[in-house]
C-alpha cells in the first residue's frame, strides 16, 4: 500500500475578501428567492446587491440556509405536536369506551343522590308530622 503525500495550500490561498464570482452570485439569488417565502421573522434583512466579497456571501448563504432548515424543523415539530395531541384524544376516547361511561355513572350517582334526598325529605316530613 502506497502513502501519497498531499501538499497543503499556502497560507495566502485563503481570501474571504475575494470578490464574489458568478457562481456565488447565482447561489445568492437562488437563496434570496427562497428567503422571500420564509416567515418575516426568519428573513435575514441583508441586501444581496451590496454583497461584494466571498466572506460576506458566505454569511448570507449561512443565514438563509439555516433559516430554511429552521422553518422546516419548526413546521415538523408543530406537525408532530398536533399528531401527538390527536393521538392523545384518540387514546382517551378509547380508554373511555373500555370503562362504564362517565355520563352513565354520573346519571346513576345523580339518581342515587335524588333517591337519598327524597328519602331524607320523606323522613323529615314524617318527623314533622309526628312532632
Amino acid at each position, binding site marked *: *500500500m502506497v502513502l501519497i503525500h498531499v*501538499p497543503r495550500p499556502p497560507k495566502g*490561498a485563503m481570501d474571504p475578501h475575494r470578490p464574489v464570482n*458568478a457562481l456565488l452570485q447565482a447561489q445568492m439569488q*437562488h437563496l434570496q*428567492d427562497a428567503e422571500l417565502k420564509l416567515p418575516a421573522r426568519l428573513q435575514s434583512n441583508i441586501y444581496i446587491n451590496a454583497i461584494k466579497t466571498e466572506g460576506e456571501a458566505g454569511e448570507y448563504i449561512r443565514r438563509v440556509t439555516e433559516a430554511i432548515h429552521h422553518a422546516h424543523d419548526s413546521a415538523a415539530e408543530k406537525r408532530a405536536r398536533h399528531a401527538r395531541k390527536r393521538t392523545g384524544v384518540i387514546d382517551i376516547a378509547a380508554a373511555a369506551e373500555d370503562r362504564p361511561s362517565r355520563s352513565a355513572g354520573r346519571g346513576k350517582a345523580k339518581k342515587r343522590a335524588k333517591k337519598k334526598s327524597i328519602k331524607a325529605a320523606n323522613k323529615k316530613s314524617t318527623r314533622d308530622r309526628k312532632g
Partner: protein
Amino acid sequence: MAPGLQSLKHIVVLMMENRSFDHMLGGLSATNPRIDGIQPGLSNPDTSPAARPVPPQPLADFQGQLDPDPDHHFPAVDLQIFGGDTTPNRKANMQGFVKSYFNQRRDRKHSQKIMYYFPPEKLPVLTTLATEFAVFNRWFASIPGPTICNRAFAHYGTSFGRVDMNLLYVNGPFKSIYNRLISAQPKHTAKLYYYDTTSSTMEITNLLQHQPELFGTYPQFLEDCRKGALPEYSFVEPNYNDHDTDGGEEIANDQHPDHDVQAGELYIASVYNAIKKSPLWPNSALLVVYDEHGGIYDHVVPPPCTPDKFTASANATGTGMPFAFDRLGVRVPAILISPWIPKGTVVDRVFDHASIPATITKFFLGDYSPRSPRETTADIFIEPQTGPVDPARNLLSLDTMRKDCPDFDA
C-alpha cells in the same frame, strides 16, 4: 455475477467545479498513451494574426492565473467550441479558447494561460486516482454552458430547458434521483452532503427549499462513513467559498478558478480516505467528476447527443441560435474508484452527467419512467446487479478485492 458488482451497496458522487480534462489530466498521456490528453500539434490561434498558434503548456498554477474567471456561459462556450464560426454548417474545432479569454481582459499574453495544463506531479491526488482506478476519456459536461444547468443534469437527467445560471424550477414530469429512491417501494436511501451551511448547496430552488431533510454536512458524511451508515446514494459537494467559522478558517476547495487547486486535491483525498477507511469500502464506489470545463482548454470535440424534450430559445442561448440540447458540453475529468476496479483502467465510451441518475436509477430501481430523453439514452458506468453482465462493460471486474489501493496523508 462479478463479485464486485454483487457486493456493491453504496455509490458516492463527488462533483467538483470548472476544470477541463486536458487542464487536469491531459499531462498523463505522456506516460500512458491510452489516456487521451495533450498531444504534440495541438494549439489554438493567437489573437494576433501574425503570431504563432498557442500550444498547450504544462505551466498551470494552483491559483492566480485564471483571474478573471474564464467565461463559461453559453455564448462563450459556443465560441470556444466553434472558434467563432456561426454559419449554419459549421463544424466544432475547439479553436476559440484563447479568443474567448482574450475577450475578457484584452491582454494577449494573459489569454494564452487558458491553454495551460498541470504536469501530473502537481496533482498527486487526481492523477494517482486516475491511474490507479478507472479514468474516463470521454466524460463530457451535459451542456456547453455554466454550473447550475450542468449540475441539474446530475440530479434530474435534464436541466428542464435551461442553459444558464437562472432559477431552475422543476416543471416537468422528471423527479430528482433522490425522490425516485426515497419514494420507491421498497424504500431506498439517498442524501446530498454540502460542505457546511456557509457553503450550502447549488440545488436550492427545488431540493433545499422543499426537502431540506435530504441534506447533510460534510462532517456528517465523515461520520456516516466511519459508522458504516452511508445511504445507498450520496452526492457530495465541495466548499464553494472562503469563510471563517468558529472552528477556524475554511478554504474553498471546489477548484473553481481562482480558488486554490491544492485545497481541492486535499478535499478529494479526504473524501476518498473517508470511504477507504470505512467498513463500507468493499461495498462502495466513488465517482469524482467536474461539473463543466470552466472555459479552460480541452482538445476533444463534444459529440452530438439525443436531443432533450426541451429547446432553449435563441434569446436564452445568447448566440442568436436556439439549442435543442443535442450536443454535449466540453470534456471534464471523471474517475471511478472501487477496490474491484483493475489498476489502470481507461474507459473510452461516451458519458455525461445524465449518466449519473441513469446509473443510480438502473442500479437501485431497475426500469423506471418517466425519465428525460437525454437520461434514457445516456450510458451507465456501473452495470445493474440483475440480469447477465457484459464483462466488456463491467468496470468492477476483479474476482478478488484489491489490497494495494493507495492512501493519502490528507
